[in-house]
């Protein structure tokens, strides 16, 4: 571990990183635009310049060198001494800032970046308070450079982060700096728009408001948003994200740094895939079929109803005796009952539901629900992978099922058995953003007499369900997902479920016969007592502002 | 009714001519009926059983309506004191405001909160009103009257119940007055109401003592408990007992304020602390009953105080004019005088309400127990000694004793380190809690 001295403070840092990175990790707010730890270093913004002690050419004595060095391009060396709090450094920052603002329009009130804009923040912290520019500012047209992205060329500071991202991370290289000097600008090739599965990241990367998300354009001011730590349900990789919401509505999703999964990036599926949360056709009240027609039910009556109906379906002894003890009936108890645990469920919910079903019917069949797979895993040059498995918690549910043992089945087998009318009752959990009830699934489940459907949207099961329970999306729940590599990551609730909907966790908590509020953490502690896999969750470290 | 209709009716009501017209239209048939039925009610008027009841009915009618007028007067006085006009929108000079208020009370939603003690909740306002009304039974409204058609020398009394215990009856009934408030506070199942009820109990029990003591001073002088006797004595001698016992009168007035829960002693309904006190949960007519009870209580209280100290129906002090006149016009005059005195008394009570800020509860209790009770005891002892030596025969003797006691108290107050009320250093800060 090399030690360097920054502003007279001795700092221990990782070997081989640039001084800028060391300073940022030490908590210094060094301004910078072009540097990004995930990208190659170009040292073009000249804002992170520092003073450094070098040996005097004659005396070999260490003295402050007369020129400034880009801290992003200078790797740390043991014993080196640099400083950022000198007059020269501050002068440089001020002048560079003034330069950046020569042509930058002052339209912060309508700029979507305002509030998280490096230019704004640095101007306030380091820059001049006024511009000496008397000429007309250069004006460039807005450019529509891709299906998701707009480029406001006026606001661009030519840090080239977006260009490097497309070259290095996405490997598609759509963006380039065209022209040179003061005419330089970011552009795409005619006919080759910025359109790759990671394209949304360039908006986050852009330190100013030059690249904007069409989706988020004009929607909100960023200071109104509340960021919640979450995990993307888009694929089984477990990309960590921030959910930015306001007034119980999601407005955008941003990557959350995660050294073990997605680093600074997320896929577009994770970024733009949340729209289904606000679909107007979501189920919003529980319904119970009575004499062939569905009637609205109260949430409070469901636990008793389900419990008693499942108990009825259990042949043999009554529920009161129905512990796991070796009674002659045990062999039969609950053979005709199945619970389909969706890989969209969190580990806690899956566990509570599985336990409930096994509690009522010890011989019930537990099924891992439909696992949607689309194509192949897609790996990008620097290793970022988009998983083919489009559900977040297949592995978590599997772990639970394996632990609980007994009768388990996969979804196909279950459907096959259902067709053979092996099941009298089944509790089906959906929660998928897309249509998952294909006609054959619907037909197979139609053979189940007492079908409980816990899902987000109306589907073909509507006509067949005996009880229909509206589900909540992941943004409305809390819990943990286990990604395909077994990494257990918690996510928090960002918004409340729509009116009439109870979060899945709370419902299964009450279904399991418990009272009070569902706290994922407490349930997880219980699970951990039985399953060591759930003892530790992984929470990536949080980066300070502007320090990525 | 449409808005326009309402506006038109309102506009019409504001016109004094319309009022006069309506009044005339109502008065003429009433007068006709009275004249035609004269022989019928002549018998009633001269009957010693029925006539007082008629007086009672008239008085009750007057008082129940006077309450409405009182509310208007209260608001007007409040307005005037605060350099405002008070209600002046409904009717000429706001005169129909009581009608509007009454209608509002009738038409408002009558809420019975879910978790109240329902029987008691309903009983409380009735109790409060009943208790404040039955006190009128012993008020000698206008002495005796001799109707022209009666035999010479016979009279009928305008007093309903000529009880031997007169004033004791008033005290007995008055002491029941607290139940309405306490039950309202208890039944409402609301902590503010509850505090109001507790405060009412403590306050009324405490102030009954000095009230009784001050009454005793007068009774020692009068030698009778009968209110009609006491008024007669004053009317004949012309010496109203306020001149004999000014200090006792002062005590009685202070206690009356407390007993009727009027400012500055309106702790049971202190809005700033207790929302509305014991009647927080009451609405519509049930609230109106409390309102009515408060004003009826004020009227009873002041009528009793007037009978005891201010000569009852006697029109002028220091003369025995009208004292023995039992003519019907004299009776009417006396009655008018009595009502005028009551009105003035109530006017003063309102005037005080809008002048003096509310006491703190500990101050209130301290005033009763540390100032008024000792003062009353002292005064009563002094008057008792005086009476023993026949001091009731000369009226200025009582005055002298009162002045002496007052001077003595002043002297004591001058010597003592602490003020009679207010902060006292050697005591723990909270004595009676925040009830």
């Amino acid at each position, binding site marked *: 571990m090399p030690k360097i001295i920054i502003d007279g403070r001795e700092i221990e840092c990782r070997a081989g990183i640039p001084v800028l990175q060391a300073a940022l990790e030490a908590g210094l707010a060094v301004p910078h635009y072009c540097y990004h730890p995930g990208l190659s270093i170009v040292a073009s913004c000249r804002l992170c310049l520092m003073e450094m002690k070098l040996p005097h050419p004659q005396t070999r004595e260490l003295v402050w060198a007369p020129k400034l060095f880009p801290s992003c391009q200078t790797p740390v060396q043991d014993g080196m001494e640099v400083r950022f709090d000198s007059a020269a450094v501050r002068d440089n920052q001020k002048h560079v800032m003034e330069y950046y603002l020569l042509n930058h*329009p*002052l*339209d*912060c*009130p*309508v700029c979507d970046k305002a509030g998280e804009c490096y230019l704004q923040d640095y101007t306030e912290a380091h820059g001049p308070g006024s511009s000496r520019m008397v000429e*007309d*500012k250069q*004006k*460039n*047209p*807005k*450019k*529509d*450079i*891709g*299906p998701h992205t707009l480029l*406001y*060329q*006026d*606001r661009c500071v030519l840090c080239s982060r977006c260009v490097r991202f497309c070259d290095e991370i996405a490997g598609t290289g759509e963006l380039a700096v065209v022209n040179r000097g003061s005419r330089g600008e970011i*552009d*795409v090739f*005619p006919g080759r*728009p910025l359109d790759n599965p990671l394209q949304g990241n360039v908006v986050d990367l852009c330190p100013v408001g030059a690249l904007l998300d069409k989706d988020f*354009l*004009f*929607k*909100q*001011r960023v*200071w*109104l948003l509340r960021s919640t730590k979450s995990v993307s349900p888009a694929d089984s990789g477990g990309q960590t994200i921030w959910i930015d919401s306001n007034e119980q509505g999601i407005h955008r999703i941003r990557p959350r740094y995660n050294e073990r999964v997605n680093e600074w990036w997320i896929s577009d599926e994770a970024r733009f895939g949340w729209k289904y949360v606000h679909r107007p056709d979501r189920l919003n009240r529980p319904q119970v079929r009575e004499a062939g027609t569905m009637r609205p039910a109260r949430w409070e009556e469901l636990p008793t109803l389900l419990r008693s109906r499942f108990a009825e379906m259990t042949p043999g002894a009554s529920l009161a005796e129905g512990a796991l003890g070796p009674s002659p009936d045990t062999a039969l108890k609950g053979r005709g009952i199945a619970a389909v645990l969706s890989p969209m469920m969190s580990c806690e919910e899956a566990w509570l539901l599985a336990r409930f079903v096994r509690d009522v019917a010890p011989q019930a069949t537990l099924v891992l629900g439909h696992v949607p797979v689309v194509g192949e895993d897609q790996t990008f040059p620097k290793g970022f992978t988009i998983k083919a498995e489009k559900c977040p918690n297949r592995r978590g549910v599997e772990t639970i099922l394996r632990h609980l043992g007994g009768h388990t089945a996969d979804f196909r087998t279950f459907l096959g058995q259902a067709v053979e009318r092996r099941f009298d009752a089944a509790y089906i959990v959906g929660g998928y953003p897309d249509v998952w009830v294909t006609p054959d699934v619907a037909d197979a489940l139609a053979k189940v007499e007492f079908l409980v459907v816990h899902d987000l949207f109306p589907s073909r099961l509507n006509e067949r369900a005996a009880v229909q329970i509206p589900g909540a999306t992941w943004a409305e729940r809390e819990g943990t997902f286990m990604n395909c590599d077994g990494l257990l990551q918690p996510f928090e609730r960002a918004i409340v479920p729509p009116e009439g909907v109870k979060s899945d966790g709370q419902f299964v908590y009450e279904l399991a016969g418990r009272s009070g509020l569902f706290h994922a953490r407490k349930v997880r502690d219980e699970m951990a007592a039985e399953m060591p896999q759930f003892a530790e969750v992984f929470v990536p470290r949080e980066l300070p502002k502007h320090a990525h | 009714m449409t808005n326009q209709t309402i506006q038109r009716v309102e506009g019409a009501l504001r016109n004094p001519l319309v009022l006069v017209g309506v009044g005339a239209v109502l008065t003429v048939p009433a007068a006709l009926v009275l004249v035609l039925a004269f022989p019928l009610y002549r018998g009633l008027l001269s009957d010693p059983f029925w006539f007082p009841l008629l007086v009672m009915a008239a008085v009750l009618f007057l008082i129940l309506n006077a309450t409405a007028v009182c509310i208007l007067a209260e608001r007007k*006085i409040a307005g*005037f*004191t*605060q*350099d*405002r*006009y008070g209600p002046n929108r409904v009717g000429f000079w706001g005169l129909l405001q009581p009608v509007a208020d009454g209608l509002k009370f009738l038409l408002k939603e009558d809420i019975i909160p879910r978790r109240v003690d329902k029987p008691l909740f309903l009983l409380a306002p009735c109790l409060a009103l009943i208790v404040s009304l039955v006190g009128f039974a012993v008020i000698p409204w206008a002495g005796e009257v001799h109707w022209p058609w009666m035999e010479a020398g016979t009279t009928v009394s305008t007093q309903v119940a000529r009880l031997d215990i007169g004033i004791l009856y008033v005290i007995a009934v008055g002491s029941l007055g607290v139940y309405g408030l306490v039950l309202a506070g208890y039944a409402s199942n609301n902590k503010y109401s509850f505090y109001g009820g507790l405060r009412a109990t403590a306050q009324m029990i405490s102030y009954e003592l000095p009230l009784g003591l001050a009454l005793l001073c007068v009774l020692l002088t009068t030698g009778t408990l009968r209110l009609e006797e006491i008024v007669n004595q004053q009317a004949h001698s012309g010496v109203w007992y306020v001149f004999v016992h000014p200090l006792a009168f*002062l005590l009685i007035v202070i206690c009356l304020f407390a007993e009727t829960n009027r400012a500055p002693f309106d702790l049971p309904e202190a809005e700033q602390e207790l929302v509305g006190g014991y009647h927080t949960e009451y609405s519509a007519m049930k609230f109106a009953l409390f309102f009515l009870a408060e004003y009826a209580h004020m009227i009873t209280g002041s009528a009793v105080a007037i009978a005891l100290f201010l000569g009852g129906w006697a029109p002028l002090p220091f003369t025995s004019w009208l004292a023995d006149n039992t003519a019907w016009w004299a009776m009417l005059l006396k009655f008018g005088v009595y009502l005028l005195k009551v009105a003035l008394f109530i006017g003063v009570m309102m*005037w*005080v309400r*809008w*002048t*003096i800020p509310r006491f703190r509860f500990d101050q209130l209790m301290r005033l009763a127990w540390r100032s008024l009770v000792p003062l009353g005891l002292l005064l009563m002892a002094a008057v008792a000694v005086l009476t023993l030596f026949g001091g009731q025969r000369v009226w200025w003797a009582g005055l002298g004793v009162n002045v002496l006691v007052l001077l003595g*108290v*002043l*002297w004591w*107050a*001058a010597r003592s380190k602490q*003020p*009679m*009320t207010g902060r006292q250093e050697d005591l723990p800060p909270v004595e009676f809690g925040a009830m």
Partner: protein
Amino acid sequence: MRDEDIIVLQEPKLSPAERLYLPQIFDGMVTTLRHMFSLKRRQQVVRQYPEDTRQGRGELRIANYRGVHRLNKDAEGRVACVACFMCSTACPAHCIHIEAGESPWPDREKYPVKFEIDELRCIYCGMCEEACPVDAIELTPHYELVGRTREEMIFDKEKLLQVFEETKHTKPRKDPPITDYGLTGGQGKDVASPNVERKV
């Protein structure tokens, strides 16, 4: 806190009469009595509101009275607001709700698709007016604000613009350049050109 910082106040010494409080009470009663009978004071102080308004007496400071809001229109009659959310950010009562959209006019980017002020929630502090970079939102001297329902008291964009129409004669708009954003001192060229160059 040191001992010498403590100032011990001597309570005023009360005379025996003052300790009885009665003289003070009578004093106070005389005061209130005097007020009760001073018709002149009453007439000076009280306004008979619907007939006698502040405006009628010329006492309303039109320039700074904070009454109902209005949304100003620019010289061409378009809403002046650029939907920057500054007012709703500054609003301490959270009574302003804006939904922004792409402006249909070439000289600016954003405009409010929806602009609602809950006049019942508003505390009329004037912070929105202070925050507005284009002087689009203003408080007017109009204070007679009544409604029969809560919904009626949520003023939408049309209603707020209507208020402007009604009050523009009593309180004219200052008419600053709309694209200024209050930041450059009137340099009206700072906004990105609305002509989108299609690259796709």
